[in-house]
């Protein structure tokens, strides 16, 4: 019906840029899950007895649980015995400095845009690099230690700071919490640990870069951040994986604890392999993230940009216990091709005058399905609690879907709630307007979508906001139609 082909159909597909595989010898445990496998993982990591006990309790509990089916996502049953639960690059000995890290691994991170060598290190950003099941390097560790900040791999924390781990592990997300959290608690292999002492403002961004490399393995990492009274930290995680035809399971747990007057800003740029154009392959990203605003005037702010994964199932949440504590959730979730996302947040208001803000931007393209699922709960004692929520959906094309499920539960009459929602379609008129000014259809789509997400990008640390914008552009290529 048209003189020119529809610009929404014309845009060509870009390859997933991070889809390469690193050839490196790995130490991988046989597929399958049993108490023996858990003992093996724990032994490989030379863990103290309390850790093994905790893992086994989690495993036994997991056996009694059923996989949740309430999310608006569809996938064939996962065979938990077909997954290998531990894979680590073979290291002659644990590297003591970055100079000792296998050059093949350094090259991998280099290729991903994450230089680890001291000379080329990202200024102002400390990085913990997690490769399959283990952390291979952490930068700026010594510099941070001078301030009393602990930033290291979870395994190292278990060895060096067992009391802190024991004190906080599972206090925000207990192993009984849900099916995937229980599984993670049983088999988690590594992750990051941050501890910010009282009154310290962490002078740089802390970040973890997760990379799945090995085939047929699951990745189960665990992150724990504790911000003592009056401290501040900004933490960022990024993730990628090779292109593989089979689906891979990633079930992570993140726990945050903010004490009196402490503030934690947690940002995610998730770009796990999303599967191909026909929906083959891709990561199942089933993640439990929760923060506890334990102290008065504490604040936890989640910002996420979710562009990858075949399926995303995650609800970064805040337990607002301390009086005047603040919870925030800023999210961009993009689903293209056959990707599915069911994501949102839970804001549980427990203390007085607690405040929460939810801003969710869902973008659906291709056959993508995007669900916002959010809960705001105001408990009896939450005098004067306030919530503001906004969920906007943008549709590109007519084969995709956007769904919104807000749950609200108010048990205190002094609470104030505001909820706004919108769904819009990216307009051909908008694209044409840009084209008429010399901007290509593809650049126009990327510009319009970035404009739609602006409020969320503003929350990201500067360096990553630019990356996130580019990522969104790349993820949309070939999408629109």
């Amino acid at each position, binding site marked *: *019906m*048209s*003189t*020119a*082909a*529809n*610009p929404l159909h014309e845009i060509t597909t870009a390859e997933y840029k991070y889809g390469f595989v690193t050839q490196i010898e790995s130490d991988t445990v046989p597929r399958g899950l049993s108490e023996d496998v858990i003992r093996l993982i724990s032994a490989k990591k030379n863990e103290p007895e309390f850790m093994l006990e905790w893992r086994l309790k989690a495993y036994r509990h997991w056996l009694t649980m059923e996989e949740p089916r309430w999310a608006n996502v569809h996938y064939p049953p996962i065979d938990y015995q077909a997954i290998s639960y531990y894979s680590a690059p073979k290291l002659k000995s644990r590297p003591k400095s970055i100079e000792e890290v296998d050059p093949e691994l350094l090259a991998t991170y280099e290729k991903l845009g994450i230089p680890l060598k001291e000379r080329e290190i990202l200024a102002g950003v400390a990085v913990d690099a997690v490769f399959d099941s283990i952390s291979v390097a952490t930068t700026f560790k010594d510099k941070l230690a001078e301030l009393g900040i602990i930033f290291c791999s979870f395994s190292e924390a278990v060895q060096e700071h067992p009391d802190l781990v024991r004190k906080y592990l599972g206090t925000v997300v207990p192993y009984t919490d849900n099916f995937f959290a229980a599984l993670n608690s049983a088999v988690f292999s590594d992750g990051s640990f941050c501890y910010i002492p009282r009154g310290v403002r962490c002078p740089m961004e802390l970040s973890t870069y997760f990379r799945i490399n090995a085939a047929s393995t699951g990745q189960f990492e665990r992150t724990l951040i504790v911000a003592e009274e009056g401290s501040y930290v900004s933490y960022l995680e990024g993730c990628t994986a090779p292109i593989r035809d089979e689906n891979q399971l990633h079930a992570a747990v993140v726990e945050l604890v903010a004490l009196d007057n402490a503030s934690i800003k947690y940002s995610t740029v998730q770009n796990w392999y999303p599967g191909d154009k026909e929906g083959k392959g891709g990561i199942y990203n089933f993640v439990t993230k929760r923060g506890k605003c334990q102290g008065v005037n504490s604040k936890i702010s989640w910002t996420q940009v979710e562009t990858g994964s075949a399926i995303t199932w995650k609800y970064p949440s805040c337990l607002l216990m301390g009086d005047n504590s603040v919870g925030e959730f800023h999210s961009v979730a993009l689903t293209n091709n056959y990707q599915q996302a069911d994501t949102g947040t839970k804001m549980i208001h427990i203390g007085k005058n607690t405040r929460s803000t939810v801003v969710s931007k869902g973008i659906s393209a291709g056959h993508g399905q995007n669900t916002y699922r959010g809960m705001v709960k105001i408990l009896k004692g939450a005098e004067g609690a306030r919530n503001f929520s906004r969920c906007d959906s943008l549709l590109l094309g007519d084969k995709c879907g956007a769904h919104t499920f807000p749950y609200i539960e108010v048990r205190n009459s002094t609470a104030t709630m505001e909820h706004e929602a919108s769904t819009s379609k990216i*307009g*051909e*008129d*908008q694209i*044409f*307007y*840009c*084209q*008429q*000014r*010399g*901007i*290509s*259809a593809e*650049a126009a789509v990327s*510009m*319009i979508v*970035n*404009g*739609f*997400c*602006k*409020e969320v990008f503003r929350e990201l640390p500067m360096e990553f906001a630019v990356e996130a914008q580019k990522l969104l552009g790349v993820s949309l290529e070939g999408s629109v139609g």
Partner: protein
Amino acid sequence: MLEIENLHAKVEGSEILHGIDLRINAGEVHAIMGPNGSGKSTLAKILAGREGYDVTAGKVLFEGQDLLAMTPEDRARAGVFLGFQYPVEIPGVSNMYFLKTALNEIRKYRGLPELDAMDFLVLAREKMKLVDMDEDLMNRAVNEGFSGGEIKRNEVFQMAVLEPRLAVLDETDSGLDIDALKTVARGINAMRRDDRAMLLITHYQRLLNHVVPDKVHVMIDGQVVRSGGKEFALELEEKGYGWLEETEKARA
């Protein structure tokens, strides 16, 4: 500069343009007038490459090139500018960023170096003066929450920054009070040049009091039924379009 020959076009199956012929030379300003629904905006959109319109016969040459074979963005880069009758909003994208991106795309196409933010700002400030535009509007999202007058001023401002070879201005005068009309007209006049052509589409004659055209065409029911000099516009103002429609029917 622009040669339109026997242009027929359909939208959603029905023919809207029934053979348009039009020739505009460099340095000339032409006006197309005509009642609502006669196909003026359709012609403008086809020149700019809006999809959804089926050209069933005829051709359009722009500086000797087959305009209809070019993508919309390449037409813009080659120097065709359309001032929209109803410009759209682009939430979250600042006017400044939008226009800088556009200008640099056009400069790239013409083999010129891109302008950085500072150079662009200097240029933009100079052009803002042409239409008394408030710098405030530069930092707002494209057309979002703009008043009717601000939207039209913004279109003329964009034209001034992008410096097209051919500017098609679709009802740039509609919805303006007399002061705003004068400002917009001043901006358009400042853009007249020997090597630039303009096509003003308007429903009313009043814009033409301020921007005096070289030629005036009347379009009715998808055809140019009469053309004349600048005084023709005054005659139309006096008599309306009715008598032309009558003669059209009589001829058919």
